[in-house]
């Protein structure tokens, strides 16, 4: 009976397994939960100083003059000092795209409140802030562009004058909508909007840079999801050879997309560290995050849906406006959001006619950055409310309409109206599962009874597909400056027989240290406790474009799997020599190589290779016990996970407060590498989705001044606001990836807006109230109710 190791897996085929599919406890949690993790803020280098930024107090204006405080000129740097740094410019080959130049410190013009204007350094942050206060900046204010719809109009003030308009990008899908408009029995027209948000990782952004004279390298510790990309970016814009830049992402306390782009502060801090020869650190504080990091989610939709009398969708006409802010982020550009929105709006539904225009509009706000779910929380909200509106128009139960319109399992694989290739799954069954779990029939009876007692309950569903781990061709089609290809990983046996995995990807909370170890464990049969995973350091890890687009397990997991498989083959051949048998007769189990009942441990094998090479055969493979492999799935178009969320809410019509009574998620993300971690991802994603649905909202006044610059004004949901989530799973393996894995990290953040607002609208149906924007704050719900009541009274 093998020993059961702490945190380890279960018996499989009579042997211990910590491989794929096991509920292995997270290896990284010991340090994360005991305060032993090391974030950028925990690192202290000799002679290190701290940085504070002077940030623009204006949304839009010309910089007339910057005066450094007398006597401190050598500790304050402006764009004039950083003249050898190239502006951040993210090119794209998409037609109509306008690129922007973002100087790490504003030159000539500021374009949002919070834009960096100068960097000040001092022994402590407080002293650096004292210095920053003394820097005088004179501005000539310009009219602020705050409303993306107005910004599209002729005559609006221009952010980038050379463009002649405020449009980063417009895209089109064309279909015969005009024909449908004349003939469709049911037409539903709606406008929807989603608020601007901040991603609010627990750890904000942080960067610590120093010049390592011995290595001839700029070493940058930075809180990032994409260390290898940041290395490329720093090199490109600072004009350094890639060999002169090493990026190390230490422990990262959440990212959600916020940390997947090159930030101007990373460039400024690096430049100052190189110039002064001193380690320089900048640690983003919450106010900086809430002002200069208010960069995501803001969409507006105009939608016409056409259906038959039963609610079968015939076509969809949409106009999507994304409020992208002032600049185009590197490397993902200002286009990704709208491109994804236009491409993903039809979602999991089976219909043939679609027309969509998207506008990516420049406004005087921070530069749009993709956040968990990228565009899909917006499109899912718009589409799911439209489905309920159609159901209401034809007088049927919304979940019935959903089931009838979703792509049926029999049509899989299915290419949808925007040419998305849905690889596998049973979408209608996910709705049926949710109906059963939430007891829809019983609920309708309960709802009627509650209404008689003056209580307003509602139920809402929301179904989506999520393109995950999309690869080379998709990103190349978006014309991005950097296109992901083969993700690489290294797996080796150490002289002790333990395993070391190196990946260029990074974990910022997703548990990759555990799940990548599980993938290696699957092939090598070594317990995950004896598998160490090194990530985040470009100096020691093979290339990966990093963690975004729910790609980690598919891509890096695939690379680890491939490398571990090759290594397992080598171990068999080494073992065959020691066991005096043929390699194909060697079997790996429990971290040993077996021939019948005879066996050698990995330690024995490793000892011969590393320490007793005299015992190696003459024809030994010289590549040793270390393998680096590259991997991408058989298709580049991504693997599509899907889920249905169902929520039951109670709305207090006197206060407008929404209480979530029940919340069920049914999801299918292919092979579950670690169900425990996957459940955590679902809870966390849904919690953020509830923030989007009910709480989070960046507000601006007419001058582009942010009104939500502290957590007293920008409301995040807390534990007391979250329901007890219930989960159900299907496991339809992808035919195109190693182990059938699909991406899952982002998914659960997508659907709550649709499910909850559909539920709120269901609850408020007796009042004639239908909400179309999120978050549905109590004040907004109350406003709608008071307005409806006033309307009724006026009618009477």
């Amino acid at each position, binding site marked *: 009976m093998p020993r059961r190791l702490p945190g380890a897996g279960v018996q499989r085929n009579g042997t211990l397994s910590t491989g794929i599919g096991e509920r292995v406890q997270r290896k990284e949690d010991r340090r994360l939960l005991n305060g032993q993790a090391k974030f950028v803020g925990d690192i202290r280098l000799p002679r290190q100083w701290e940085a504070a930024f002077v940030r623009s107090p204006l949304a839009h204006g010309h910089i007339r003059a910057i005066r450094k405080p007398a006597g401190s000129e050598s500790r304050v740097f402006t764009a004039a000092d950083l003249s050898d740094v190239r502006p951040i410019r993210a090119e794209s080959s998409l037609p109509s795209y306008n690129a922007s130049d973002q100087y790490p410190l504003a030159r000539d013009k500021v374009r949002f409140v919070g834009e960096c204007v100068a960097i000040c350094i001092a022994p402590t942050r407080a002293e650096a802030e*004292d210095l920053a206060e003394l820097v005088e900046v004179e501005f000539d204010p310009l009219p602020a562009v705050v409303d993306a719809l107005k910004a599209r109009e002729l005559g609006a003030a221009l952010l980038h004058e050379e463009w002649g308009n405020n449009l980063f990008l417009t895209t089109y899908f064309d279909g015969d909508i005009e024909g449908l408009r004349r003939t469709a029995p049911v037409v539903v027209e709606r406008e929807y909007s989603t608020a601007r948000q901040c991603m609010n990782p627990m750890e904000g952004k942080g960067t610590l840079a120093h010049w390592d004279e011995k290595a001839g390298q700029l070493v940058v510790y930075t809180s990032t999801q994409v260390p290898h990309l940041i290395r490329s970016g720093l090199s490109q814009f600072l004009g350094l050879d890639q060999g002169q830049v090493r990026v190390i992402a230490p422990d990262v306390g959440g990212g959600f997309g916020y940390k997947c782009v090159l930030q101007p502060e990373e460039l400024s801090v690096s430049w100052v560290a190189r110039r002064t020869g001193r380690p320089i650190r900048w640690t983003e504080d919450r106010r900086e995050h809430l002002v200069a990091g208010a960069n995501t989610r803001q969409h507006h939709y105009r939608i016409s849906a056409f259906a038959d009398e039963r609610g079968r969708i015939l076509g969809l006409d949409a106009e999507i406006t994304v409020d992208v802010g002032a600049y185009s982020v590197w490397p993902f550009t200002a286009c990704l959001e709208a491109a994804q929105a236009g491409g993903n709006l039809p979602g999991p539904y089976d219909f043939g006619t679609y027309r969509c225009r998207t506008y990516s509009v420049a406004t005087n706000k921070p530069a749009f950055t993709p956040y968990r779910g990228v565009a899909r929380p917006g499109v899912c909200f718009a589409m799911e409310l439209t489905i309920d509106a159609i159901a209401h128009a034809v007088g049927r139960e919304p979940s019935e309409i959903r089931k009838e319109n979703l792509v049926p399992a029999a049509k899989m694989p299915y290419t949808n109206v925007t040419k998305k290739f849905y690889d596998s799954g049973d979408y209608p069954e996910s709705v049926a599962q949710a109906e059963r779990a939430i007891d829809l029939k019983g609920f309708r009876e309960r709802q009627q009874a509650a209404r008689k007692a003056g209580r307003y309950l509602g139920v809402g569903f929301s179904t989506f597909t999520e393109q995950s781990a999309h690869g080379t061709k998709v990103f190349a089609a978006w014309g991005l400056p950097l296109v992901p290809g083969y993700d690489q990983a290294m797996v080796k046996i150490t002289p002790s027989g333990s395993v070391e995995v190196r990946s260029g990807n990074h974990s910022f909370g997703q548990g990759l240290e555990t799940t990548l170890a599980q993938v290696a464990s699957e092939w090598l049969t070594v317990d995950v406790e004896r598998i160490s995973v090194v990530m985040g350091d470009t100096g020691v890890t093979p290339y990966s474009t990093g963690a975004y687009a729910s790609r980690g397990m598919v891509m890096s997991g695939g690379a680890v799997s491939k490398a571990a498989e090759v290594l397992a083959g080598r171990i068999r051949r080494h073992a065959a020599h020691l066991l005096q048998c043929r390699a194909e007769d060697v079997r790996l189990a429990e971290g040993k190589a077996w021939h019948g009942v005879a066996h050698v441990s990995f330690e024995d094998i490793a000892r011969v290779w590393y320490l007793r090479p005299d015992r190696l055969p003459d024809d030994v493979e010289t590549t040793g016990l270390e393998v680096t492999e590259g991997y991408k799935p058989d298709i580049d178009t991504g693997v599509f996970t899907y889920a249905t969320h169902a929520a039951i809410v109670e709305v207090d019509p006197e*206060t407008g407060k929404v209480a979530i009574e029940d919340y069920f998620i049914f999801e299918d993300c292919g092979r579950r590498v670690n169900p425990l971690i996957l459940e955590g991802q679902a809870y966390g994603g849904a919690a953020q989705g509830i923030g989007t649905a009910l*709480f989070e909202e960046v507000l601006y006044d007419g001058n582009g001044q942010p009104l939500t610059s502290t957590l007293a004004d920008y409301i995040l949901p*807390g534990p007391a606001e979250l329901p007890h989530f219930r989960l159900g799973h299907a496991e339809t393996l992808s035919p195109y990836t190693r182990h059938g894995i699909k991406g899952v990290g982002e998914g659960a953040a997508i659907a709550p807006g649709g499910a909850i607002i559909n539920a709120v609208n269901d609850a408020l149906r007796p009042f004639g109230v239908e909400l179309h924007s999120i978050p549905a*704050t109590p*004040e907004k719900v109350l406003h709608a109710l008071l307005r409806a009541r006033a309307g009724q009274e006026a009618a009477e």
Partner: protein
Amino acid sequence: MKPAPFDLIRPTDPAAAGLALAAGDGTAKVVSGSQSLGPMLNLRLARPEQLIDVTSLPGLTAMRETATHVEIGAAVTHARIEDGECPEPIAGILHHVAGGIAYRAVRNRGTIGGSLCHADPAADWVTAMTALGASVIATGPGGAREIAMTDFMLGAYRTALATNEIVTLIRIPRHSVEARWGYYKICRKVGEFADAIGAFVADPVSRTCRVVFGATGGAPLLSAELAGHVARTGAPAEIAAVKEVLANSGQALSEIKIHQLAVAHRRSVLEALADA
């Protein structure tokens, strides 16, 4: 977000505190738990040159009961009141109000006196103490004086304290066993500042009945008219009637705010009378 430089002074007797305050000539600020002032210092919205920490002053962390009053030292934390260390002027009210203030981490450091002196309209103690008919003892170089809550808070972040005075004690009249109270807070989420507070205290023995609205944007609003209605009828006024009182209160209240206050009031009264 680090504060501008300041000197921290920690006097051990009230006279020294008063002197330090006077010497500061408007540049000094009293601090107790630092849960409101701390963030303002960090945001550099408050920039005192001296910070006078009063938590070491004698008696400021004591609580006691006299024949007529409950007396609470100004530097007593919300957490101690929440945990039941404090005598109650009416069963359960202080425990309830204290437990609803922000989060436990804030309650561990924040103090009742600090909260009253900060005079944030959306904070709990200013409203609860008004409803309880409490008063504060202000101590300065000239000695101590008692100020009724209704005279203490003048408006948002404004109090009747002289620049050289500090609040040392809160005095709350003890109510009879027949007294009833209700306290209903509408806020975005657990621990957030209130959007509206309804507070209600009635004691048939002393024939007092108070209706207070909190989180109005200014000092708590007392309504004798609505209190009279409850006393006469044994029930809260209809929402429409409450709204009318609020609309005519002289305070600039939005339509939503009036609605929220009316609902909070009604629920506080219903809560108080539920088990009567």
